């Protein structure tokens, strides 16, 4: 038509956001197979990064619930996030002759090579779930992957800052470089700012996992003091960062002028989206969907099938326009397509 290019480039960010506001649809990751016949009676041994992180243990519990009806046994190695406990878990999995080991959510296979090799030698594949972005190279000896679209998530939280300020974003990004997924997320953020908001300002502050509670608040508060123009805090991981970032905003007396966009979709933080005064948007993940994807990939591999290349786990943007759909417990908003989709794929009734 006759209308020229977008009135302002930030609308591109808005368009990207809008695209991800709808309920995601299920796309089969690979060919259908008979799960009961292929994987029945086998054991998945899950080693979560830390059982103390709620979303990690929630995913593990989902897998257990999903795989049960298929006849797959699931063992969860409860731990407090110490590498020596992971090593012990790997050894226990090998000793118990598990059929597959799942390193869940932050457990870096680069750091467990001797054990992964030992498992491989015993014919036990190690599946790495919820760690890499699709474009990230995986560590060697890994038997399968269930990736998360971190880069897309990063782009979306940047888009929110850009769109919400109508192209005048001045954002501070709180990173945890120690976490593997920070890299693709930051890449996504930078890309969006370059594309839709070249005049915007972007700053970073990094903390380690151990310093989350003691450092985020002072760091963010200092940044807000140092640059009174800051209007957005981009928090990569919601439950680990948002409470402290929000405290900084409150303590700096900038409530209402500085907003937060974040990722993970933890219920407590989605609740803050509903409250709306500080957190304006949260890129949600569906932990049950992820559970299905991991179960799917594990059963394929245990059953001797070709692993899927892209598990196609989606994310969804929740802001004040659609937060009501997350339900009273902030766990809904994903429809049912994936449940029936996976069941059909596995040949269940």
């Amino acid at each position, binding site marked *: 038509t006759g209308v020229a290019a977008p009135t302002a480039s930030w609308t591109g960010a808005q368009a990207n956001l809008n695209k991800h506001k709808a309920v995601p649809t299920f796309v089969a990751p690979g060919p259908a197979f008979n799960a009961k016949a292929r994987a029945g009676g086998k054991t998945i041994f899950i080693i979560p990064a830390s059982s103390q992180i709620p979303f990690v243990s929630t995913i593990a519990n989902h897998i257990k619930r999903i795989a049960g009806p298929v006849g797959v046994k699931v063992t969860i190695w409860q731990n407090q996030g110490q590498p020596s406990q992971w090593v012990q878990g790997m050894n226990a999995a090998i000793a118990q002759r598990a059929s597959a080991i799942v390193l869940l959510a932050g457990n870096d296979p680069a750091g467990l090579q001797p054990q992964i090799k030992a498992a491989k030698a015993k014919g036990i594949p190690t599946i790495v779930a919820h760690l890499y972005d699709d474009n990230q190279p995986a560590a060697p000896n890994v038997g399968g992957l269930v990736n998360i679209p971190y880069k897309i998530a990063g782009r979306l939280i940047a888009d929110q800052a850009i769109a919400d300020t109508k192209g005048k974003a001045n954002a501070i990004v709180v990173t945890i470089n120690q976490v593997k997924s920070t890299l693709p997320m930051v890449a996504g953020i930078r890309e969006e700012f370059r594309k839709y908001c070249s005049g915007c300002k972007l700053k970073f502050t990094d903390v380690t996992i151990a310093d989350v509670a003691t450092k985020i608040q002072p760091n963010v508060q200092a940044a807000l*003091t*140092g640059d009174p123009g800051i209007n957005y805090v981009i928090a990569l991981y919601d439950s680990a960062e948002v409470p402290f970032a929000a405290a900084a905003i409150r303590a700096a007396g900038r409530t209402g002028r500085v907003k937060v966009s974040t990722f993970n979709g933890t219920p407590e933080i989605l609740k803050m989206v509903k409250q709306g005064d500080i957190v304006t948007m949260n890129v949600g993940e569906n932990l049950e969907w992820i559970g299905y994807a991991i179960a799917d990939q594990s059963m394929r591999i245990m059953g001797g099938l070709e692993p899927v290349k892209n598990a196609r786990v989606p994310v969804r943007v929740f802001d004040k326009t659609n937060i009501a759909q997350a339900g009273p417990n902030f766990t809904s908003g994903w429809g049912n397509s994936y449940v029936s989709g996976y069941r059909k794929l596995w040949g269940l009734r």
Partner: protein
Amino acid sequence: MISTTESTEPANPAARERSRSRVADLMERYALLGAWGLVIVVFGVLRPETFLTTANFSTIFGSQAILVVLTLALLPPLTAGDYDLSVAATMGLSGMTLAILNVDHGWSIAMAIVAAVVVGLLVGLINGALVVLLGIDSLIVTLGTSTFIAGVILWISDSQTISGISQPLIDVVVVNRFLGIPLAFYYGIALGVIMFYVFEYMPVGRRLLFVGRGRNVARLSGIRVARLRWGAFIASGVISAFAGVLYTGTLGSADPTSSLSFLLPAFAAAFLGATTIMPGRFNPLGSIAAVYFLVTGITGLQLLGVQTFVQQLFYGSALVLAVALSQLARRRDAAGSG
């Protein structure tokens, strides 16, 4: 138990064996404050437009009240010669109790605060009982209870962050201000001043000191050693709980694990604080100065935009250098006069 008698004494009595000049005394006393001043000057020169602003100092003072209070919680047991490693866990537990009662069970914020403080009191009571009645080393008791409490927090919270604390608490902690600084700051200072008074001008403070410095002598002098040590643990538990209330008020939520990361910074501040104001004794005002000295540096670096690791390098070396400084004042004098 007598073993730990001298254990937590920060000073160097051997060095004190020499009488020394007033100048060195003052230098030792105020070395940390001098270092603090220096840090302010350096960053003031490097970033005058952002560092030397009221907003910045309001940030510095307002953001560390929790650490101040937690550090103060350590002082009664340290003075009595005991370690309390459970303060950070107790802070987490009381904050979580407050959040659960207020958010999940709909208690009024006042009642929830009372409950949170009672929880701290109970922890102190248990710690004290184990240390005093069973005669177990305080370090291992509180390491044990700390881990236990961490488990309890995960249990009662189901590992979830609880948010949605009533606004009034948030208001009186971080939103409302006096002279531009959130009220939390003044709570910390008020507590510090009260403790200073108790330690310095009330018999019970000196009794505690006697217990810490010579448990047997204290007993021979008719001091109720067991009762005082127990009391110190209870005080520690209650103050930690108060820190937990402030923490939850600051965050507007309570999470199950983050409080533990305050433990080592609190110990660092307590020991660093023992080198200033009243060198050789754990003292509240020194501890407060130590907290703010360290955070001023960190904030300055933050404003310079340096990487995280530089903050850690600063923190580590500032700790050692500040102590070394006050130690050198003492030494130089000792060398000069002895």
